[in-house]
């Protein structure tokens, strides 16, 4: 889960990282109350989950209360490449003399946190990485050792930074590493890590991504609140995983495992059809829950047809068929449903399916047979 800057900075502050204290604004009417003790000059920053907001006009300076109001009015509600600004962060402006880049992420190959540091930070960091890869220092941290002072020395000497920064950089390294491990992050990024006009280091921007498997209750609630896709959210409430694939697709797929879903997408694509979305039931879904899954797809999703492909280990075939039956009884049978299942109680499941008596419900005895049935029933555009 990617956190917005304001939330990331809350975590930064919790771990003692140097951030300037500001306030968060959801409505312009809150401005009078919140801006009482604001230091000027300050910066107004759009809180959106997309990079390049500065270049898009989503960050503005303000030298006095009038300019602050004008900046907030200009940015609130703005559309930044499809992301509407609904929240602002206002912080005191830092007098920046230099911009560095510092992040920690997971090196999947080494299976260790990796620190990435550059003395050439700021908005053009990606360009720096392309044009001057030698200016980017990468350093894996062995989790059994943790961050040590020599790591700071390595960044300073390889990164071309004065030795006088050793102490302050080491402090920041320790804290950002503590945050990364403590909150089980996938990324903690400070860009820029600024040297201010007094020589202190300040995290002017903050980006944090937390492992979806490690969210606490408050972050999980925030994730739901920020979720842009209604069906992803609704599926999550039922403990399903809904993944939109291609808006031009005609078919949605329900299955009981990620690997099988990927295989279905591959085979359907190979047969010149296109998948609109997929839904993973997880293990052991009952008829009631399967009905809900079908409803989420067929009642709300734009797909014209549904492929239910279940290899029953924990999930039982009669429950799957029962779910289809319940759905048809409640919502009717306008769209095509191709059902394939294998495993526990298959015969019992088949009997239930036969009893439905709708020509829009088709049983296929095998994965490839199921995909062929979709093609025969007009799912090729």
């Amino acid at each position, binding site marked *: 889960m990617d956190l917005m800057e304001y939330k990331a900075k809350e975590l930064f502050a919790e771990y003692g990282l140097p951030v300037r204290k500001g306030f968060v604004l959801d409505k312009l009417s809150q401005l009078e109350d919140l801006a009482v003790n604001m230091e000027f000059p300050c910066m107004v920053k759009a809180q959106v989950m997309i990079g390049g907001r500065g270049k898009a006009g989503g960050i503005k300076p303000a030298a006095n209360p009038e300019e602050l109001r004008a900046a907030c009015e200009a940015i609130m509600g703005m559309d930044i490449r499809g992301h509407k600004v609904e929240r602002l962060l206002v912080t005191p402006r830092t007098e920046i003399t230099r911009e560095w880049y510092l992040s920690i992420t997971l090196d999947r190959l080494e299976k*260790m946190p990796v620190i990435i540091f550059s003395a050439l930070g700021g908005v053009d960091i990606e360009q720096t990485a392309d044009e001057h890869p030698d200016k980017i220092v990468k350093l894996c941290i062995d989790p059994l050792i943790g961050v040590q002072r020599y790591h700071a020395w390595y960044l300073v000497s390889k990164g071309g930074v004065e030795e006088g920064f050793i102490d302050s950089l080491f402090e920041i390294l320790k804290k950002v590493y503590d945050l990364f491990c403590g909150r089980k992050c996938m990324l903690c990024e400070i860009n820029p890590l600024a040297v201010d006009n007094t020589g202190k280091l300040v995290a002017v921007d903050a980006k944090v991504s937390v492992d979806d498997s490690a969210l606490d209750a408050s972050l999980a609630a925030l994730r739901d609140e920020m979720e842009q896709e209604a069906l992803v959210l609704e599926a999550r409430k039922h403990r399903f995983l809904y993944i939109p*694939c291609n808006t031009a697709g005609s078919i949605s797929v329900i299955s009981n495992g*990620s*690997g099988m879903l990927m*295989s279905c*997408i591959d085979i359907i694509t190979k047969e010149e059809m296109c998948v609109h979305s997929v839904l993973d039931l997880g293990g052991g879904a009952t008829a009631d829950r399967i009905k809900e899954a079908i409803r989420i797809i067929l009642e709300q999703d734009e797909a014209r047809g549904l492929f239910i492909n279940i290899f029953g280990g924990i999930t039982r075939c009669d429950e799957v068929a029962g779910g289809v039956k319940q759905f048809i009884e409640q919502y009717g049978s306008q769209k095509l449903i191709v059902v394939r299942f294998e495993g526990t109680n298959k015969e019992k499941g088949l009997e239930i399916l036969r009893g439905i008596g709708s020509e829009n419900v088709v049983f296929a005895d095998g994965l490839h047979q199921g995909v062929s049935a979709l093609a025969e029933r007009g799912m090729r555009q």
Partner: protein
Amino acid sequence: MSILVDASTRLIVQGITGREGSFHTQQMLEYGTNVVAGVTPGKGGEAVHGVPVFNTVKEAVMQTAANASVIFVPARATAASACEAMDAGLPLVLTIAEHVPVLDMMGVYHLARKKRCRVIGPNSFGVISPGKAKAGFMAHRIFSQGHVGIMSRSATNCYETVFMLTNKGIGQSTCIGNGGDMIPGSAFVDILPLLEADEQTQVIVLIGEIGGMEEELAAEYIKTQVSKPVVALIAGKNAPKGRSMGHAGAIIGADGSGSAGSKEKKLREAGVHIAQSTADIVGIVERLLQ
């Protein structure tokens, strides 16, 4: 022979008194697995399906001479349980849960190397050597004993393959669920030497998917170290980019890393037979065994 689990396995079930732990203990016992002990703190002295329960793994090992553990505890307690098993000196630890935090597994991974322990999973169905023993939750009825060794990041793709193999009368030596997470305790490259050395295994099947570099590393190894024929499937070729496909590890990076194309290319260069679907795997294996 087969690998990892067999008749000599003396298995501990951590979390044996839980719903999943208890149910699958029964399933494993019925299959013939020698489940010698269970562990649930605070439930020491009880028994589950006739298996004695201990408060700690250390006690269970001392009392029963166990040599492996399968962990059926919730995701967020999995790493601590794995550490306990390693600390008690067990050489094989199987982690089952889905949604184990990646950094938890990172710690387990490095500790396992220090302790010389083999960790399988997480997000794995476990390991089964058909006809001998199983440790995990796989639907064992579809498996049959034979000469195909399978390692898979996906449970469902492995089941589908095994089901078709068994229907054609082609059995398996050992099937390993490497798991769908970003940091698996054992990757393909860690299992390959065992399957290569195993006398029962004649053909090796690798069921991979998008994301990470495991298949590429396996290809490097196969090129010089594996003499047996290898068949591989890479699932997720047409998965939408930038989205994790349910398996936390199955994601293509913004730079295109972890794509199916690069994996297939490296494997093909290493002489691996590339299958386009699970049915295709079965066809190729059938030809190779003739």
